[in-house]
């Protein structure tokens, strides 16, 4: 499907990935217009229901991204989120949903080029 333009929703943490994406913008780097970024206070706030809502609203792919372990602004939000994702991914797979549609990642504030390339890889 050469014409397929996936809709991608990025659930990102305010303190790292969002700052990285912001830096991408202010550095005038280009990233795919198919990505809609939604900012959260912490990956610990990214409830699995939000991901399901994104799929129900027509998202083809989801990026969930937060701070590296030990870099969490609230010290442990990303650790709790990691546990939730492990279980959630297993359940999605059990229900026959392709877990490749949800991409989890850790990004630092310095990761702007990685963020751009990740978005490019999806598109």
């Amino acid at each position, binding site marked *: 499907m050469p014409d397929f333009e996936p809709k991608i929703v990025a659930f990102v943490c305010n303190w790292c990935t969002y700052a990285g994406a912001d830096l991408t913008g202010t550095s005038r780097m280009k990233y795919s217009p198919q990505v809609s970024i939604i900012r959260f206070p912490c990956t610990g706030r990214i409830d699995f229901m939000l991901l399901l809502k994104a799929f129900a609203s027509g998202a083809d792919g989801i990026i969930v991204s937060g701070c590296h372990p030990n870099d969490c602004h609230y010290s442990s939000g990303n650790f709790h989120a990691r546990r939730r994702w492990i279980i959630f*991914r297993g359940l999605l797979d059990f229900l026959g949903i392709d877990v490749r549609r949800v991409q989890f990642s850790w990004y630092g504030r310095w990761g702007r080029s990685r963020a751009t390339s990740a978005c490019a890889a999806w598109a």
Partner: protein
Amino acid sequence: MNALREKARELLAAKTVQVVIGYGRGSGGSARAVFMRAPAQAAELIFDATCLQNLAVYLMKPEVRKLGKAALVATPAALRTILQLAAENQVADNSLLALAPVGEDIMPLATFAAIEAHVAAADHDLSAAEGAELGKFAAMGLEERRRFWEEQFSRCLKCYACRAACPLCYCTRCTVECNQPQWIPVPAHDLGNLEWNVMRAMHLAGRCVNCGDCSRACPVGIPLYLLNQKLISDVSSVFQARSGMAARSDNAMSTFKPNDPEDFIR
């Protein structure tokens, strides 16, 4: 059965407890929950292979709490439920009496420590048959699994009997009733069935004691126990955790280890 009736009569006569929650004969040969408040009622009590319901579900109902201190006829799953409720600060030690049937006899367990000892003596791993059923799913293709669950969930009426029957689904405000935003669409329609069933399973991750009451309550026979057992198996293999074994324990999903696996995170 006689030991059970005798014990119930004795407890109610001595006013050690105000209510005995047990099984009585229901219609069609089934068992139903009975709430006995007078010694004379104790003769109604039964305990046999039809007594499957997890009676610990009533411990969280305000109508039952109002009755006073309860004695509860407790299957192994109900005992684990009590410990899990204790771990979640929902029941206090010495606030109830568990009556565990052991063969023809009855073992009264008054403290969490006694329940813990009783529970620890038994095996609570998923049975070989349960493991084999999960293995069958793992061997299926992704598309086959998706079709299976699409068919199962298409029958869901959103009656939430699974929620009402579950002793650990005790929130007084549920996401289901939340309408700003409307997480789960209200009509009995396919829309939202996946969301509801994923949410129910996820909220029980690391908490479910595998009593199977959700599946028994489901009026359209969705095998909800499969979702629970999948999560029990994952929580046990990845986090080495098991619910309902100790009155003071952390829920697997509200704690973490710095070295939890993250091979899927790029």
